[in-house]
């Protein structure tokens, strides 16, 4: 682990990403400090999910630099992103967690196994250790009674809380959320947002793509407004929501 910039958990610099001819990210810069909660908002198709997917190794970028927890995932060399080797990439994957919009739990595993499988088989923890971590997370997520249930028998809100527990289990330095409540009914949304709020109180570093504007305003330290593959405006959460500077931001927020 590197000691320099120890308080920057995520650094993204000059990120360019295209799908074929379609340029989806057009030079994104984003720093996330330790303990900071950043909300990413913006209209559909603006590139929010793509940005998270690039940061979480699910997509590769063409240009730019990405540093997570002090490890360089990719660096810009003569205008081209050059990626680290597989070994470091694997290590970097243990430094972040990702929570998907549609949960992506493993349906054939019990709740417990969803949470412990990576602990045991990737992080080489003993079964007892893994179970202890799992029990603690389940009580935090208010899901103790569901340890032996299967995802198909849980509500959407419960499934999303399991997936948050799964992402937290490996003790990551940062967690990314891609619209964690968009697939949920309003009353199920509350439970999930409450859990994320608690994580924010514990100073968990988080990047959250969301359409829940009041949640972003209240929980995030910083809001980033993305549109058309660029960051149009960013700033302290309360200021950006109540007093946006750019026309596009104003127009977008007027819709809420």
């Amino acid at each position, binding site marked *: 682990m590197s000691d320099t910039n120890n308080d920057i958990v995520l650094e993204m610099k000059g990120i360019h990403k295209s799908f074929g001819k379609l340029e989806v990210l057009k030079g994104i810069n984003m720093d996330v400090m330790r303990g900071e909660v950043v909300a990413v908002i913006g209209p559909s198709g603006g590139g929010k999910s793509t940005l998270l997917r690039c940061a979480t190794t699910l997509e590769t970028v063409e240009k730019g630099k990405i540093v997570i927890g002090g490890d360089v995932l990719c660096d810009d060399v003569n205008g081209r992103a050059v990626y680290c080797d597989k070994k470091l990439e694997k290590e970097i994957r243990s430094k972040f967690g990702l929570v998907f919009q549609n949960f992506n739990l493993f*349906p054939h595993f019990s709740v417990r196994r969803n949470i412990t499988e990576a602990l045991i088989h990737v992080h080489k923890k003993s079964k007892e250790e893994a179970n202890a971590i799992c029990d603690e997370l389940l009580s935090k997520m208010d899901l103790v009674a569901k340890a032996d249930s299967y995802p198909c028998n849980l509500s959407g809100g419960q499934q999303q809380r399991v997936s948050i527990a*799964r992402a937290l289990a490996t003790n990551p330095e940062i967690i990314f959320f891609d619209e964690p409540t968009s697939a949920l009914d309003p009353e199920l949304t509350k439970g999930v947002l409450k859990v994320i709020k608690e994580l924010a109180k514990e100073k968990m570093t988080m990047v959250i793509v969301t359409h829940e504007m009041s949640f972003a305003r209240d929980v995030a330290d910083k809001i980033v407004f993305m549109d058309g593959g660029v960051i149009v405006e960013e700033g302290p959460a309360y200021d950006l929501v109540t007093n946006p500077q750019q026309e596009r931001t104003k127009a977008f927020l007027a819709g809420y």
Partner: protein
Amino acid sequence: MEMLKSTIIQLGQGFGYTFGIFFFTVVFSIPLGLLVARGRMSKLLVVSAIFRVYISILRGTPLMLQLLLVYFGPYYIFGVNLGSIQIGPFNYRFIATIIAFSLNYAAYFAEIFRGGIQSMAKGQYEAATVLGFSKMQTYFKIILPQVVKRVLPSVSNEIITLVKDTSLAQVLSVAEMFTNAKAAAAAQVSVVPFIVVGAFYYIMNLTVETILNRVEKSMSYYS
């Protein structure tokens, strides 16, 4: 009554071969089918083309013809005489039968497995990737168990067909049940052996079905 009893005994002796063909074909064709499915899904166009042709030919020509080709091919084409080969209790007739059946059923299984693997949501791979699972772990822990559940009904269908297809081994004069039944019917000038052999196949399939249903049920704890 004596006649019926001796018929049953005679067919029972053939049952060993029938069951052997069935058993070894299942054991070999399923893993082979998985490999063929992987090859068929290869990103290398040459590889996927080769496996596509393989599947197309094996599904598009009669199994009986494939049996004959595997058995006679080495000698007729290359002049290699394998007739004296013997592995344990199995002679070349039987081995050729197993090879042909396994190659043929692997083609069918490959297409079933491919459908199952391709029906898996991308999100399962992605969730596994970000959790740090290796490609192998993802395949064997996350993907394959779910694929097995999805393809089981189609696989069951093939396995039930296989029980009946074992009778095709008669073209190589393997002494399985059907060959014996034909001989008995001719000797006795009677249809009784045919009825008895039909009962054998039916009972075998009932058993196979019961087992497969159990397996299917054991995987119904999630959806």
